[in-house]
């Protein structure tokens, strides 16, 4: 077997063995995996911070988290800051809520961007009952 033939066979073997081995290493876009407060949660005490967990590391500097209270024309929106995220792969983005929330309906309105530029956003509604 000459050198050229060996190279050809090696490339073929790499394709036959190596490429299928990669199957299942599926790449998915960034997604919200869970949050605190969770969607539609009913809390008996005001949360002190909002935590958002994503399936991948999001771009923190272009992430925004806002809290709206009230419904319709009376809704009030405020940005939560500063946002932070620990280095660990599964660390959440954390935002302080600030002053304790009164009883009522709230929504966390968030927007972030994946490393590939994919922008995603969402709304997490929750209620606070009998807050002290």
């Amino acid at each position, binding site marked *: 077997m000459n050198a050229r033939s060996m190279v050809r066979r090696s490339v073929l073997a790499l394709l036959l063995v190596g490429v299928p081995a990669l199957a299942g290493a599926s790449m998915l876009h960034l997604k919200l995996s869970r949050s605190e407060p969770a969607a539609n949660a009913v809390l008996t005490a005001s949360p002190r911070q909002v935590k958002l967990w994503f399936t991948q590391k999001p771009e923190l500097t272009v992430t925004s988290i806002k809290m709206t209270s009230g419904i319709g024309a009376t809704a009030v929106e405020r940005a939560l800051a500063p946002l932070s995220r620990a280095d660990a792969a599964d660390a959440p983005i954390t935002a302080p809520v600030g002053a304790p929330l009164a009883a009522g309906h709230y929504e966390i309105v968030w927007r972030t961007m994946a490393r590939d*530029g994919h922008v995603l956003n969402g709304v997490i509604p929750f209620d606070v009952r009998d807050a002290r």
Partner: protein
Amino acid sequence: MEWIIARWVTFVATVLATGACALALALLPRAISADDDTRRQIARDAARIGIVAALALIPAALLRLADQLLALRSDGDPLFAGAAPLLTSTMWGSGFLAQSVATLLALVGFAHAHGAPGVRRRWIIPALGCLGLCATPALQGHAIGSETYTSLAVAADIAHVTGAGLWLGAIGVIGLLGVAIPNGDGIVNPVHVSRADARLRLLVPLIPPVALPGVALLLLSGVISAVLKLTDVGDLWTETWGRYVLTKMILVTIIVALGARNWRTLGPRIARADGVPALRRSLIIELLIALLVLLITAVLVVTPLPGEE
């Protein structure tokens, strides 16, 4: 939609600019049957195509930036409020800035090469710019977003665009050089027709040594990229992303088949009077299909991956 068009223009321009460099650095030096003046004229026109391609990248980049800023903007905020953090502290921004530098390098390089098109070393700067242009889409697509096999995915994306540039780009530039453009009255100058025919006769037989490595690079990297994103072979016909990939594979196979036909059947007839028009028709069909392939590639970037629908 505008994001897809901007991506498409970016891919077409990147591939054409790379093809112009491939033609000047790899094809023309082997055109030993042509005199120096003919080679210089072809290189000058290739540099002109490179300049137009690099210029087309500028509005496409601005459109992509505006679209990204719009997607990140909150109601009532000025459009450019988020530009600084987007460009300076995100991977997308790094890719965008790298692409801007590569565009500038290619533009200046092509203009420099246009001044003395026969001097090979003048093509090194645009070639470096084009290498940068081939590398940067990987920093703004699915590959860099992956948290597994990221390096492999990025390398495959870079190889994919480079392969497309060497193969489809070179064919695209030869196709443009081999077309006689009518004047304002719709009349084609016979001298231009004869020059275009002569260029096709000279350049088409030289394509295989550049096109074949380009095709190999494109196919190998395409297979790796697809396998990294598929969760199952069935995704190719059950998922939207898979159907686009399958369509792209079929279209690429048609281009390869047309190329093989050009090489084996039409190539030997190129010296005959009816040989060149048949070859030109085939090249135009190849290029139209290639434009469609690049459009599908632009759509793929914004299509949910398998398992996300």
